[in-house]
C-alpha cells in the first residue's frame, strides 16, 4: 500500500506541477511509494483526512489544529520566510479609505481558504462587521474574487496576500488594499500522520536539507518555496494556540 500525500487546496495553480515533482523526489529519496492526491476543496480534503486517507500533508495552518490535536499528526517542517497573511481589498473607486468606513450590509467576496477568511473577518471587526451583518459570497479562486470586485458584484474582497500580489498589474491597478495583516507566525506546515511517523526523522532530515541538493533546489523552486526549515512540536502547538484565539 503506498502512503498518501496531499497538499492544501490553496496552492497557487502555477505550482501544481511542483508538488508532483516534490512527490517524485520524495519517493526516490525515501525509497517508498507515495501517492499524491490533490483535492478541489478544503471540505473534500477534510473528509479524506477524517477517513484516514492521508499520511503526509502540506497543510493550511487552520487545518493544522484538527490534524495535530484530533488526528495525531506531527509537524516536520515549514517553508522558510513564507507567512500566511491576508489583505482586504476594495475596488479602486470605492469611497472607503479605511475598514471603519465599511457599513453593515457590505457585500463580501471570499474563498473557502479558512485562514484567509478568518483573518479577514478579524480585520473587519473594527467596523463592527461580522457574519450576521454582511452579505457573503464564496468563490473558488482569488481571480474570481477579483472579478467580482471589478464587476461591481462585491464591495470588498479577502485575498491571501501572496495571491493578491501575484495578480496582474492590470487587475491590481483597478483595486486598492484597505488593510494588510501583519501576523508573522501563521504559516503552512508539512505534517505526518500516525502511519508515517516511523519515517519522520528521515523525512525531516531530507526536506530541511533539500535546498543544498542540486535536484532539490529545482523542486523547491517549482513549488515556490525557498527552503524548508525544521518545525518543532512546540512551534506547532504555539501556532495552533494562536489560531484557536482567532476562531472565537
Amino acid at each position, binding site marked *: 500500500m503506498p502512503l498518501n500525500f496531499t497538499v492544501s487546496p490553496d496552492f497557487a495553480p502555477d505550482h501544481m506541477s511542483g508538488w508532483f515533482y516534490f512527490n517524485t523526489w520524495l519517493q526516490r529519496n525515501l525509497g517508498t511509494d507515495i501517492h499524491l492526491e490533490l483535492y478541489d476543496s478544503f471540505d473534500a480534503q477534510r473528509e479524506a483526512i477524517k477517513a484516514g486517507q492521508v499520511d503526509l500533508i502540506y497543510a493550511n495552518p487552520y487545518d493544522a489544529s484538527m490534524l495535530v490535536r484530533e488526528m495525531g499528526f506531527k509537524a516536520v517542517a515549514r517553508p522558510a520566510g513564507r507567512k500566511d497573511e491576508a489583505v482586504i481589498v476594495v475596488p479602486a473607486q470605492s469611497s472607503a479609505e*479605511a*475598514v*471603519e468606513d465599511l457599513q453593515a450590509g457590505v457585500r463580501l467576496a471570499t474563498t473557502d481558504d479558512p485562514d484567509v477568511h478568518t483573518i479577514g473577518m*478579524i*480585520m473587519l*471587526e*473594527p*467596523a*463592527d462587521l461580522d457574519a450576521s451583518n454582511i452579505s457573503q459570497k464564496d468563490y473558488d479562486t482569488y481571480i474570481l474574487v477579483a472579478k467580482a470586485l471589478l464587476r461591481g458584484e462585491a464591495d470588498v474582497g479577502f485575498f491571501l496576500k501572496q495571491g493578491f500580489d501575484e495578480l496582474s498589474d492590470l487587475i491590481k491597478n483597478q483595486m486598492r488594499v484597505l*488593510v*494588510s*495583516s*501583519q*501576523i*508573522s*507566525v501563521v504559516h503552512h506546515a508539512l505534517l505526518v500522520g500516525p502511519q508515517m511517523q516511523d519515517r519522520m526523522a528521515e523525512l525531516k532530515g531530507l526536506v530541511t536539507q533539500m535546498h543544498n541538493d542540486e535536484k532539490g533546489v529545482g523542486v523547491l523552486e517549482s513549488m515556490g518555496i525557498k527552503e524548508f526549515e525544521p518545525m518543532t512540536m*512546540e512551534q506547532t*502547538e*504555539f501556532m495552533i*494556540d*494562536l489560531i*484557536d*484565539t*482567532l476562531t*472565537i
Partner: protein
Amino acid sequence: MSEKDTGSVNEVLIKYYGGAERVAKIVDEEVPYPDGKLIVSRTDPQGIITHVNQAFVDMSAYTREELVGANHNILRHPDMPAVAFKGLWDTVENGEKWQGYVKNLRKDGKYYWVKATVIPNIRQGKLVGYTSVRRKPSRSKIRESEALYETLQ
C-alpha cells in the same frame, strides 16, 4: 487619540491582586491600535511573561528585556476594574477561553484598547501557561466597555 482624551498627567497608586502595588504615571491619551496586527504574549501559569512579539513591544513602549520575566499585570490600567481580571483568571484557570475588551497601560502612561483573547496552553494534558492575543476593537465596543467598567470600579 480619543475625542474624550484630555492629555492630563496624574500619578496613581495601582494595587495588584496579592498585595503588590506601584505608583504609575497615567496620561489621558490613547495610542491607536495598529491596523492588521496582532499583539501576542505568553505567560507561565503564574502570569509571568515568557514571550512577547514585536507588536507587543511596540505598543507597550517597554523593551523586550523589561517585559520578559515581568508579571503580566504590568499592563494593567487603573481604569480597569479588578472584577474584570478576576473573571479572566477564573475562566482560564477553569481551562476555558476568555475574551473581552481591555484598556492597557503603556510604560509612558498613555493607553490603548484591545480585544483580548486568552487561552490556556495544554501540553500532554498539563497546563504550561497562557497565550494572549489582542486585536483591534471597534470604537462602539470601546464605548460600551468604558461605560460598563465605570460602573464596576
